């Protein structure tokens, strides 16, 4: 039993997610990611249960572990009660702890998610907020979203909202007091640490890749733009 495996084991989701795999493939059969990506949840569980540190390290540095869409269809069917999606979460956590997530194109995207969803949580109290769903980077939202984006208070308030105001209601202002509590929760529970780690490792990687790294913001930061848009095209079957 290797050291890496032991570290992985500290995450209770590994214990919950992997008892013993008989390699029946029922998870891969139903997995949406397996259909479209070079991805096979069965082999991931099989690899982890070998406890082979070399193979696990390879996984932690690979594109592979970032393909899962967390739909949990695997959990519904596994005859041994495993959940590959939970094993994936444990692997992703360790990959970020070690800083190895920057070695894969998909792993590097963690910075993009941290700068968008991650900062929204602490700044606004929402994971997603209309002022951050900018049509230029969300063309898929269509012309109706462009209209909503340009007239957010009117549209929201037409529909019973309380846009950016205090008190209850849709897209209300989350008060400073609540935001401070969230901040404090992040501090004591390791959330802030993870954000910092994602930034630091990304900065290092940006330097290595010779891409300018501003350190905050989104479309103003070349490294953010790079990880947000880069796709080698080598990810599907």
């Amino acid at each position, binding site marked *: 039993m290797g050291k890496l495996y032991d570290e992985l084991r500290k995450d209770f989701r590994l214990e919950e997610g992997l008892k013993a795999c008989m390699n*029946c493939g*029922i*998870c891969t*059969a*139903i997995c949406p990611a397996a259909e479209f990506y070079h991805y096979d949840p069965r082999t991931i569980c099989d690899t982890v249960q070998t406890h082979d540190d070399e193979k696990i390290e390879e996984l932690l540095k690979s594109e592979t572990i970032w393909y899962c869409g967390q739909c949990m269809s695997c959990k519904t069917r*596994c*005859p041994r009660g495993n959940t590959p999606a939970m094993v994936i979460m444990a692997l992703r956590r360790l990959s970020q702890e070690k800083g190895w997530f920057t070695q894969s194109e998909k792993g590097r995207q963690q910075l993009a998610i941290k700068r968008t969803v991650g900062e929204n949580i602490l700044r606004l109290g929402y994971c997603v907020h209309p002022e951050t769903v900018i049509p230029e980077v969300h063309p898929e939202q269509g012309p109706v979203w462009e209209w909503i984006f340009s007239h957010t208070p009117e549209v929201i308030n037409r529909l019973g909202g309380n846009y950016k105001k205090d008190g209850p209601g849709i897209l209300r202002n989350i008060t400073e007091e609540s935001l401070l509590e969230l901040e404090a929760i992040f501090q004591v529970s390791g959330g802030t640490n993870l954000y910092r780690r994602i930034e630091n490792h990304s900065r290092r990687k940006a330097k290595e890749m010779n891409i300018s790294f501003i350190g905050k913001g989104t479309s103003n930061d070349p490294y953010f733009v790079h990880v947000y848009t880069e796709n080698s095209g080598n990810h599907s079957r």
Partner: protein
Amino acid sequence: MNQSKQVVIIGAGPAGMEVAAVLSDHRYRVTLLDKELQMGGKLNQWAHLFPDFSDADELRHAMLQRLNKPEIHFVPQVTVEQISFSSEKIRVQLSDGQLVNADALMVTTGFQVFNAARKEEYGYGLYQNVITSAELETLFRESRTIRTSNGRKPGRIALVHCIGSRDEKCGNTYCSRVCCITAVKQAIEIKKRLPQSEVFCFYIDMRMFGHGFEELYREAQEKWNITFIRGRVSEAARNQDGLLQIKAEDTLTGRPLKMNTDLMVLMVGMEPSDGTRQMQWMLNLKQTFGGFIQSETGLLNGNATNHAGVFVAGSCKGPMSLSDTLTDARSAALEVMKYLGHSIPERQQASAENEISFDNR
């Protein structure tokens, strides 16, 4: 001496019949009970037996012939209402009002097939053209042709292993032992009747444990062109044409696959029968982790239970083939005989000339 002893056998399937045959050979009196009108149990439902396609009816007939003895009293269409124990006898109260006093009890209440409707994702009972292996066997038995629900010859048939077995999700984590060889057998039987069809077996492991099994598996591939795919089928859905769309992973090539099929045969596993559960409850018998009746541990004592005077044989103990069942039944009969104080002839004094010595000289 033996004629004064009465054994009640609950369940007249192959195990019960075989125990009755052996005991009656040794002049013990046997009362053989069954809830059905006929003896034979599940043997009445099979057409041809693996691995050599021998006729189930012929076997059944041969077994019946051996039961044509005055010692055997067959009581059909009864169940057991109550069992009580005194210091002398075991009193068995039957549903037809009879009371039988036994010196020993033999439980051979057998199994039932897993209810495939419990695995909702396969669509059994909801979609057409999803049948169980038991239903296919009945079709063979009644010499009906294999057709889809709209009367056509199926071009493609998929046999899906491990339905209700090796599966935490439905509560049966054990292997039902005989479904793999049954799938091989039925795949060949389908091919014999529909030589133009494509036949697939979706398996996890090929459990070819018995004599001739591995050879039959090879024949299925070489002679009958049956395709074996190592991957557990995850779900079946019906499409507009009435075809079934199944999803599995071909684990040997590591690729997910989706396939349309005309007919799907679910290889259903074995569970303790209702009769077996009733006996467990009535007699407070120990259970195996699969819910079957636990015989006393150890290879030397496989037919006794935790209840003195109560013996058990056959598939009520766990998934078994016919071959296993008959062997187990004979062993159980011997156990009962020992329990009943079977008279054993005195050993003769060995004389010097006749003595066989194992010393090295």
